[in-house]
């Protein structure tokens, strides 16, 4: 048997987990970078602001001029970013530099509000970040805003942003490893029932078609159920084939032997009148044999259908009508009557099997029962019946007991086989074959569940 392999489940899980991790990694990396950048900017902006406020607080007015007693703490604060160059400048109300570097750029003018203004600017060749803080004086000798600008290069910020992003990535990598490990373990454990199932199947005897009973997780239980159902059908068909062969051997041997003996007799018979009689009997027996063969093959076919034919909504009245039409031409067929309700009686099933089963019952009634034969459909509480009634007393209780079994050969003309077929069909439709006396005779009926019930 050719095995066509597709991607292994582990590879699929690995692919899915890998895709999630890569996508997640890209998202986390970009988020971490932007978050790290923002966090670093905020942290060091505060440092800048602290230094600028320190310097602004150290401005005093002496002799009508602003004087900055530059606090060492401001520089120590800035030195917390140890690798960064710094630049500061204090300007008076007229914009002239009081102290500090002339090269420090002023803040963009658009925001003239009172609060501190953060802005980007260069420190020589390197990019930098500045803050401007304005302190307003209203003294007798000095009034107007004094602006403090403090800036530094970005090395510490970049290092911190890198640290934060790196930390996030390290966490992500660890999480990825953990997720991968757990996914691998989960896949392995999820696949173990399948391996157990495969091992159980491999261990089995080839003729063993009994259901496999293994505890299975709910996701795999349907597979096992389907497998068991499949094996059940296979088992039934194997049994049916075996039965057919057995029946054929059992039921055909005697009539064929009789025909052979009679044919030999006829061959040896000199008297033309007796020979003609013998030939007539051979012909009669051949017809019986052919009917028997028909039934056996029908049965095999019906049993095969019960497992394979799709189920559809069937109106039992149509089934009864078809049976009636099929048997009309048989001896006594004209004596049959149909008893049908006005409303449809619907079951789910295979119409052909049902017709075949009903024909068997009706043929039995025609052959062994007493006229009038009635074919009808009735509705019980929870089930519906397709029945065949005759006016006779029916077979004896002892015969009834054994009826429906395959080898009911005591019923002449293969009636037992017909009942067996009817029983198989009833069972395959979830119903039963009922044989029994009714108020005015004997009734054989297929009792089937209502559609939708």
């Amino acid at each position, binding site marked *: 048997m050719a095995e066509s392999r597709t991607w292994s489940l582990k590879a699929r899980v690995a692919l899915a987990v890998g895709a999630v991790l890569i996508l997640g990694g890209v998202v986390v990396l970009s988020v971490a970078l932007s978050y790290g950048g923002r966090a670093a900017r905020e942290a060091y902006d505060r440092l800048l602001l602290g230094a600028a406020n320190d310097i602004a607080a150290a401005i005093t007015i002496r002799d009508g001029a602003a*004087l*900055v*007693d*530059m606090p*060492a703490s401001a*520089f*120590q604060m*800035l*030195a917390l970013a*140890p*690798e*960064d*160059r*710094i*630049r500061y400048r*204090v300007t008076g109300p007229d914009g002239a530099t*009081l*102290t*500090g570097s002339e090269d420090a750029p002023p803040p963009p003018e658009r925001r003239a509000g009172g609060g501190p203004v953060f802005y980007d600017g260069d*420190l*020589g*060749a*390197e990019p930098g970040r500045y803050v401007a803080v304005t302190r307003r004086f209203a003294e007798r000798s000095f009034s107007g805003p004094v602006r403090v600008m403090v800036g530094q290069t970005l090395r510490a910020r970049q290092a911190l942003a890198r640290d934060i992003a790196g930390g996030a990535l390290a966490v992500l990598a660890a999480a990825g490893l953990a997720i991968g490990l757990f996914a691998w373990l989960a896949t392995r454990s999820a696949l173990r029932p399948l391996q157990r199932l495969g091992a159980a199947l491999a261990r089995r005897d080839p003729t063993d078609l009994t259901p496999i009973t293994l505890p299975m997780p709910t996701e795999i239980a349907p597979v096992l159920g389907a497998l068991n159902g499949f094996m059940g059908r296979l088992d039934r068909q194997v049994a049916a084939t075996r039965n057919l062969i057995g029946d054929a051997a059992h039921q055909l041997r005697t009539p064929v032997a009789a025909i052979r003996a009679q044919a030999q007799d006829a061959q040896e018979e000199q008297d033309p009148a007796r020979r003609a009689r013998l030939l007539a009997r051979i012909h009669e027996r051949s017809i019986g044999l052919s009917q028997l063969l028909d039934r056996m093959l029908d049965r095999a076919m019906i049993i095969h259908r019960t497992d394979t034919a799709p189920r559809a909504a069937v109106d039992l009245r149509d089934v009864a009508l078809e049976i009636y039409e099929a048997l009309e031409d048989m001896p006594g067929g004209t004596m049959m009557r149909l008893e049908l309700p006005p409303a449809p009686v619907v079951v789910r099933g295979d119409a052909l099997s049902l017709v075949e089963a009903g024909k068997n019952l009706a043929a039995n009634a025609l052959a062994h029962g007493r006229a009038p034969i009635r074919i009808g459909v009735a509705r019980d509480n929870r089930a519906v019946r397709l029945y065949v009634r005759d006016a006779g007393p029916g077979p004896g209780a002892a015969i009834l007991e054994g009826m429906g079994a395959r080898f009911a050969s005591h019923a002449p003309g293969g009636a037992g086989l017909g009942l067996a077929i009817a029983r198989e069909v009833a069972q395959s439709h979830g119903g039963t074959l009922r044989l029994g006396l009714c108020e005015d005779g004997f009734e054989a009926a297929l009792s089937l569940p209502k559609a939708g019930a």
Partner: protein
Amino acid sequence: MIRAALLALTLLAAPAAGQELIRDFGAPTATETLRLRSTTDIAVLGPVIERFLETRPGLHVAYEQWGSNALYRLQAADCTAARVGADLVISSAVHQMVDLVNEGCARPHRSAATATLPDALVWRDELWGVTREPAVMVYNRDLVPPAQVPRSRFDLLDLLRPTESPFRTRVATYDIERSGLGFLFAFADSLEATTFGGLMESFGRSGAVATCCSAEIIDGVAEGRYLVAYNVLGSYALVRARRDPRLGVVAPQDYTLVLARAAMIPREAGQPRAAAQFLDFLLSAEGRAALERAGLLVRLDGEDGTALEISGTAETLQRPIALTPALLIALDTHKRALFRARWRDAFPETGGTAP
């Protein structure tokens, strides 16, 4: 001895108007020339350079000796004009060097040798502290009885407190308006401890003398005009004390400022590789030994047999002047003006030239 004499004459001299001296080291036929600008006296650093050239025969060193302010102005101008000038600059005015680096005038260099420096003596891998020179107190052994020798600033305060103290008018220190190094030490003191305020007040009340420069101060102590000199550069004082038994040198035990002359490679250096090699040499064991012999690397553990008198352990008393942007405050115009005014309160105008 000659070297020491030269040192006495020129080390930490008043800021000169410009270039003071030039000397070439190494074979004139050498293909490579390292242009070194320094405030350090040629005679002091010369042997170190010669020792270096023994390992680099193909190199020729052009040494220019500058006053610190002139050197600062020259380097700043070179930097602004992006002009090729010195390949290596070494200055004792470390705040000016920090400013040059802060203005982006230096180029980085990283090596195993620079990695051995403590964090306080490296900035941005562009500025390195190459020497160790403590700020010390010098006293006259003949005139100051051992019991009165000041071991710390507190001792000095106590000596100056009595109104009849023999130390009145006989304590000297640098005039910060005439000595850049004196300014740096005094400024570092003001950041370091509250003692400084008391000391200023005491100096003012007791009529202490602010003068220039190292040579004059040490001479004054040796001759007995001053009993104690405060905040004198130890490298210089120790060399003098080695040959002058009248001089005692004390590392204050409350804390001792340690100056590390700063080296940088200018951004536009023509021979940055040779400059980096010389720097690495200065930081190597061999270079440090040479600097120690030159008196520029003073060990504060007292195990080198120098005349430095130390009490307390080296770790607790050392306060290296860290090469950080915090030193920029020493260049702030307002801060300098305020500091000078405060200084003037203690040392009224003595007729010295204002810068």
